[in-house]
């Protein structure tokens, strides 16, 4: 206690020097915590976006991931309901699961009769409400793109898809430009003859080896009455087992930005029942991927192990991939940001260490006589060393605490001043956030870093002072 008191009072001797040192530590610790909070936001935003698109795990038919991208539908899973039930009813997985859903991915050609334009596309069939639930996954509470007024053009108004709108679709902005679609398409009214009678009962397409014009017609009433309707698109896809292409007409509900430019330029999202029927006419629902969304990303390893056990136990011809494998961008980005963080961390550590070393050395030089006195009256070398290191520690502690306050203020300030920007690889606005309060680990890391710096950089001058000859030190009285 006496040492603590003495250390605090010694810090107060040269107030300006101590204040400058404390401020430098505070700015460094605060800056580090803010950068950590920013990196944390980036990691979580990308994780949230990736998991919100792909889930934590995707289960495919074996070899789909390596060989199926050219013809995904050829690797479709035809017993989706059975697999979904198996996963949802597993007692180990059940408490961890947020959602099990399916997707079907396919490629084809899209044309717009009205604008006389055509393009290749990537089709993604989803269960609309489940897909919406998937995209809403946000356990970290970060500001989502659809909450920003800057993105209101894209995310307001009609939902992208609806469970009861079998023929509705959303088109990526880039593809919409190619097809020269209206910027704000309005959904065809529900009473429109274009709608199937029931979402769960999509119109059956007759078997045919040729272009399935009857199927096309049955799906798209408006096409007959208004072949030039700008909201309608014709899709042409090759059946997975070969033969003549199948065709259908879909209604554009919405034009949407996508997470990446590539997706924005190619993706058409539609009801999975429509997509499955288009590819596997008259057959039960097919999916190319069963998506597993967990409540927490921390459970991914556990869930993966469990899913693998289920696959093995039930001799299913399936394989699985975790979200970081599906989008390797994430671990690469994470590594890059971590490296930048480490670099900045080292720079700040060196700077703060030199500053504390300098402050401590100067303070010790000014107090050599006093150090000699303390040693003369019986303070041991180790006790003196501890006292001097305690002074450095107090500087680090005060600077670190102030740094935490700076970081928290920075966090709040970022929330208040509302900085938005378009991040690389993404096509819509994101709000800059620093997850300092929502990820207090960064605060703790910066604080402990500051303290360690203070201890290490004051240990050396303290050692030098403690090893001085008493008589030599007393000469400076």
């Amino acid at each position, binding site marked *: 206690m006496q040492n603590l008191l003495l250390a605090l*009072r010694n810090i107060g001797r040269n107030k300006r020097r101590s204040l400058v040192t404390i401020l430098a530590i505070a700015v460094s610790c605060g800056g580090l915590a803010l950068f950590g909070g920013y990196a944390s936001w980036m990691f979580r935003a990308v994780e949230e976006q990736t998991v919100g698109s792909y889930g934590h795990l995707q289960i495919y038919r074996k070899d789909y991931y390596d060989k199926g991208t050219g013809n995904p539908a050829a690797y479709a899973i035809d017993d989706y309901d059975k697999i979904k039930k198996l996963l949802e009813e597993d007692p180990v997985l059940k408490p961890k699961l947020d959602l099990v859903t399916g997707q079907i991915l396919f490629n084809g050609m899209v044309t717009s009769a009205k604008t006389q334009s055509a393009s290749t596309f990537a089709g993604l069939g989803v269960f609309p409400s489940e897909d919406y639930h998937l995209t809403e996954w946000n356990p970290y509470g970060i500001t989502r793109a659809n909450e920003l007024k800057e993105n209101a053009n894209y995310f307001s108004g009609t939902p992208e898809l609806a469970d009861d709108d079998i023929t509705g679709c959303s088109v990526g902005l880039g593809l919409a430009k190619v097809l020269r679609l209206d910027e704000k398409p309005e959904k065809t009214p529900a009473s429109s003859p274009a709608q199937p009678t029931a979402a769960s009962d999509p119109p059956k397409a007759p078997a045919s080896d040729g272009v399935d014009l009857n199927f096309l017609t049955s799906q798209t009433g408006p096409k007959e009455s208004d072949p030039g309707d700008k909201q309608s698109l014709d899709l042409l896809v090759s059946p997975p087992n070969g033969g003549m292409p199948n065709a259908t007409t879909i209604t554009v509900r919405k034009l949407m930005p996508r997470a990446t430019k590539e997706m924005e330029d190619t993706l058409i999202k539609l009801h999975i029942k429509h997509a499955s029927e288009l590819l596997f006419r008259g057959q039960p629902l097919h999916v190319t991927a069963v998506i597993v969304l967990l409540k927490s990303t921390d459970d991914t390893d556990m869930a993966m192990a469990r899913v693998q056990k289920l696959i093995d136990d039930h001799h299913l011809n399936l394989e699985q991939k975790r979200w970081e494998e599906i989008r390797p961008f994430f671990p690469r980005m994470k590594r890059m940001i971590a490296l930048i963080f480490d670099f900045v961390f080292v720079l700040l550590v060196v700077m703060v260490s030199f500053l504390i070393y300098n402050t401590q050395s100067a303070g010790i030089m000014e107090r050599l006589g006093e150090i000699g006195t303390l040693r003369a*009256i*019986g303070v041991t070398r*180790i006790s003196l060393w501890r006292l001097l290191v305690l002074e450095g520690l107090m500087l680090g502690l005060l600077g670190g605490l102030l740094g935490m306050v700076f970081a928290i203020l920075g966090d709040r300030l970022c929330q208040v001043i509302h900085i938005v920007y378009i991040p690389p690889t993404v096509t819509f606005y994101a709000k800059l956030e620093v997850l300092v309060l929502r990820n207090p680990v960064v605060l703790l890391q910066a604080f402990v870093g500051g303290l360690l710096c203070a201890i290490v950089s004051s240990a050396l001058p303290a050692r030098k002072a403690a090893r001085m000859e008493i008589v030599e030190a007393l000469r400076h009285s």
Partner: protein
Amino acid sequence: MPENPPLVEAEKISKNYLLGKTVVAAVKEVSLSVARGAFTVISGPSGSGKSTLLHVLGCLDKATSGMLRIAGENVSALGDHELSLFRARKLGFIFQSFNLIPVLTALENVEYPMRINKVPHKESKERAREMLESVGLSEYIHHRPTEMSGGQCQRVAIGRALIMKPDLVLADEPTANLDSATGELIMELMHELKRKMGTAFVISTHDPMVAAQAEQRIMMRDGKLQANA
């Protein structure tokens, strides 16, 4: 063993310094003894080696050769850590420039040696208060050294030196920074406390007034003991 062994026994103490490449002999084979409760003065001209001898006797500096025994302990054989503990328990120091810790109050300065010796807080505070009363500073217990006169600071230093009831107090020119009246008062105080506590004092000084009060007088010249009376 004699019935009343001396408090300090020094046998052929030498202390050499290395000045560049030259060896300087500051103290040359000095032998002396100091009785318990004695008031000993080391005097001599500047550079005679009296401060060096005082430092060696105070275990602040190690002799190059010779044997030193204080309170029955062969301090020549002790390491730095043990010497620190020995100083804390058995020795007290009074310096020319008072050498108080400027950030501590008078009370805290006097308390400090008890902190080193792990005396319980309540007891140390009480004893420090009593000590300051006995040196006439009861009204200054919460004053810092910068808020006190030289004489008052030296009183605090005397209190600090005596608070652990040491066997020996070493004082290096204790009156040099004081006016003669204050110096005399300080010497009176030291005598009074010596009588009350039975502590031996070894004082290094130029001051004839101080030297005149010695019960044992050691004269140094050129590092050698010239007279021990």
